[in-house]
C-alpha cells in the first residue's frame, strides 16, 4: 500500500492521526517538524517508512528510559503515602481500589483514606473497594475536613504498620482556587507526619487539551509525581499525556483499562504508541494487548471474580 513518494496526503494523514489522538496542535507540529527533518536526512520515500519514523518519534517523545516505577511501599518504618488527585469523575476512587488490590496481592498491607468528604457516597464507594480488595478504610464525618481524614489515615497506617496508605481525594476542577487550596492543605497536613511518596494525578483518556492545564495546575499545587491514564479500554487514545510529559516532566506510570479490580497495568511506551497509531484499533485494544502480554486475553468484565493482579507488579 505504500506510495513511492511522500505526497501531501501522507503528511496530512500523519498530522490527522496525531490530532485525532488528542496529541494537540503544538505537540503535533513539533513531532511533524522533526519528522520532516529526519525524512530529509534519511531520504525516506514511502508512507510506510514514514509511519515507522513516526512511531520512533512518538516513542522518543515519551522517553522509554523515564523512571515509571511506583514508589508504593514504605521503608519498613513508615508506610508509603500515596495521594490521589484529579478532576471530577476521572477515576480516582477506582484507581485507589485497583492499586490497593495490586499491593495486597503482592503481600503488602494497605490503608485507604477517604478524604473525599464532599461527594455523595464517596466514602461508601471507597469502603466497598476496601472490602473488595481487603484493606482498612479510614473515613470521617460527611462534610468534614478532608485534611484531617487524610491525617488520620496516615496515622492509622503508621500505627498498624501498614506498607502503604492511599489517600483518595474529592474531584476538583483545576480552575477552582478554593478547592485547589484545600488540596494543598491536605498535602501539607499529611506531611506533618512525613513526606508523601507519590502524588498521582488521574487523567481520563477521553480528556482533550484541557488535560495539560489540569496537569499544570495540579503539579503547581501538589507536585504531581506521576499520572494514571484511565479509561484506555475505550476508543480514546489519551494523546494529551505526551504534552504533559514533555512540558511538565511528569510521566504516566499506570493505565486504567476497565472498572474491575484487576484493570490496571503499568504504562508501556511502545504499547501506547502502537495503539495510538493503530487507526483500526477497536474494542478495548489496549486491554487486549495488556491481556496478551500477560499470557492470555483479559476477561471482559471482572467485577466480581477474584483473579490475581497479574498485569501489574508493584516494584
Amino acid at each position, binding site marked *: 500500500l505504500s506510495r513511492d513518494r511522500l505526497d501531501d496526503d501522507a503528511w496530512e494523514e500523519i498530522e490527522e492521526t496525531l490530532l485525532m489522538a*488528542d496529541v494537540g496542535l503544538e505537540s503535533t507540529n513539533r513531532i511533524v517538524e522533526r519528522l520532516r527533518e529526519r525524512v530529509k536526512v534519511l531520504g525516506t520515500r514511502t508512507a510506510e517508512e514514514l509511519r515507522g519514523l513516526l512511531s520512533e518519534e512518538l516513542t522518543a517523545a515519551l522517553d522509554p528510559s523515564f523512571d515509571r516505577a511506583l514508589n508504593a511501599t514504605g521503608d519498613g518504618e513508615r508506610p508509603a503515602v500515596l495521594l490521589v488527585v484529579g*478532576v471530577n469523575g476521572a477515576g480516582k476512587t477506582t484507581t485507589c481500589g485497583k492499586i490497593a488490590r495490586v499491593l495486597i496481592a503482592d503481600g503488602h498491607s494497605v490503608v485507604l483514606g477517604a478524604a473525599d468528604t464532599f461527594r455523595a457516597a464517596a466514602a461508601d464507594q471507597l469502603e466497598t473497594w476496601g472490602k473488595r480488595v481487603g484493606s482498612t478504610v479510614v473515613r470521617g464525618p460527611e462534610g468534614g475536613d478532608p485534611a484531617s481524614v487524610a491525617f488520620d489515615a496516615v496515622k492509622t497506617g503508621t500505627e498498624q504498620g501498614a506498607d502503604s496508605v492511599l489517600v483518595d481525594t474529592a474531584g476538583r476542577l483545576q480552575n477552582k482556587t478554593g478547592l485547589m487550596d484545600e488540596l494543598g492543605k491536605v498535602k501539607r497536613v499529611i506531611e506533618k507526619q512525613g513526606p508523601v511518596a507519590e502524588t498521582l494525578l488521574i487523567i481520563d483518556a477521553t480528556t482533550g487539551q484541557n488535560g495539560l492545564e489540569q496537569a499544570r495546575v495540579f503539579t503547581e499545587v501538589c507536585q504531581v509525581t506521576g499520572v494514571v491514564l484511565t479509561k484506555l479500554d475505550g*476508543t480514546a487514545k489519551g494523546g494529551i499525556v505526551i504534552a504533559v510529559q514533555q512540558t511538565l516532566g511528569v510521566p504516566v506510570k499506570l493505565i486504567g483499562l476497565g472498572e474491575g479490580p484487576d484493570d490496571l497495568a503499568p504504562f508501556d511506551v511502545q504499547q501506547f504508541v502502537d495503539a495510538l497509531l493503530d487507526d483500526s484499533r477497536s474494542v478495548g485494544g489496549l486491554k487486549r494487548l495488556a491481556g496478551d502480554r500477560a499470557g492470555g486475553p483479559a476477561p471482559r468484565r471482572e467485577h466480581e471474580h477474584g483473579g490475581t493482579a497479574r498485569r501489574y507488579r508493584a516494584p
Partner: protein
Amino acid sequence: MFDSLSERLSGIFNSLRGKGRLSEADIDATAREIRMALLEADVALPVVKSFIHNVKERCRGAEVSKALNPGQQVIKIVNEELITILGGEARRLSFAKNPPTVIMLAGLQGAGKTTLAGKLAKWLKDQNHQPMLVAADLQRPNAVQQLQVLGERAGVEVYAPEPGSGVGDPVKVAKESLAHATRHARDIVIIDTAGRLGVDEEMMAQAAAIRDATNPDETLFVIDAMIGQDAVATAEAFRDGVGISGVVLSKLDGDARGGAALSVRQVTGQPIMFASIGEKLEDFDVFYPERMASRILGM
C-alpha cells in the same frame, strides 16, 4: 491560555482592511487560523473540516468583499455558523401525554449522570412536578447510595429496590419503576444508568434494553465538556446504540473550551438542552448557544 480568534485573524486582515474581495490565499490563511482555534478548543477534526468548508464558501461571497472590515466580517460569519450549529431547533423537555414522563440518562463513566439526575429532579420539583429518581446503575460501587443522598437533598423520592454494587437487574428495576410511579402519582421518572463505553457491546445492549422496557420520552446523553476528539466516536455509539433525544454538557464550570459541544451537536443532530455547571444541585442551567460559541472561540 489561547489567543482569541480575533487576535489571530487581525494579523491577516491588517494588511487588507477595507480593500474588498479576499484572495484565495487570504481565505486559506484565514481558514488555517480558524482551524487552529477550533482544534485547540477540542472540536473534533472531521467536524472542523466540514465547518471550515462552509466558512470558506461564505468568505468567498459578497458579504465579505463588501465589508468595510473583512476581518470582523469573517469573525461574524464564524460566530454565526457556530451559533447555528449549536443552537439548532432549541426546544424544551417533551412530556408524555399520559404520565409518567420518562427521562433516561446515558453516557460514559464519570460524565455526570447521577449528579444531573439530582439536578433535574430538583429543577422539575421546583416547577411543581412530582419527579421520582430511579436507581438503575446497579454496577458502579455505591451508585445507589449516591443517588439516594442526592434524592434526599432534592426532596425527591428515589426508587431503589436493589442494593446495586453488582447486585440486581437494572432493566427490571427500570421497568418496574413505571408502575411504582403511577401508583404514587409521580408524573416524571428520571432513570440513572451506569456509565458505559461506546465499545462495550454488552453494556450498550443493556442500555437499549432499559430503553425498550421504559420507552423514554427523553433520552439525555450526558457528556463531559472536557472530552477531546473521542466525542465523535462516543456520540455515534450512543446515538446508534441507545438513541439520543437531547444532550447535556457537564462540567462547564471548568476552563475547558468545550469544542465537544460542536462535535456532539453535529453528530447526533439533537439539541444541547442543558448545561451542568457545578457539583451542587442548583448548578444547572438551560444551554445558551451564543455563550458556547464565544467560549469555543475564546472571545
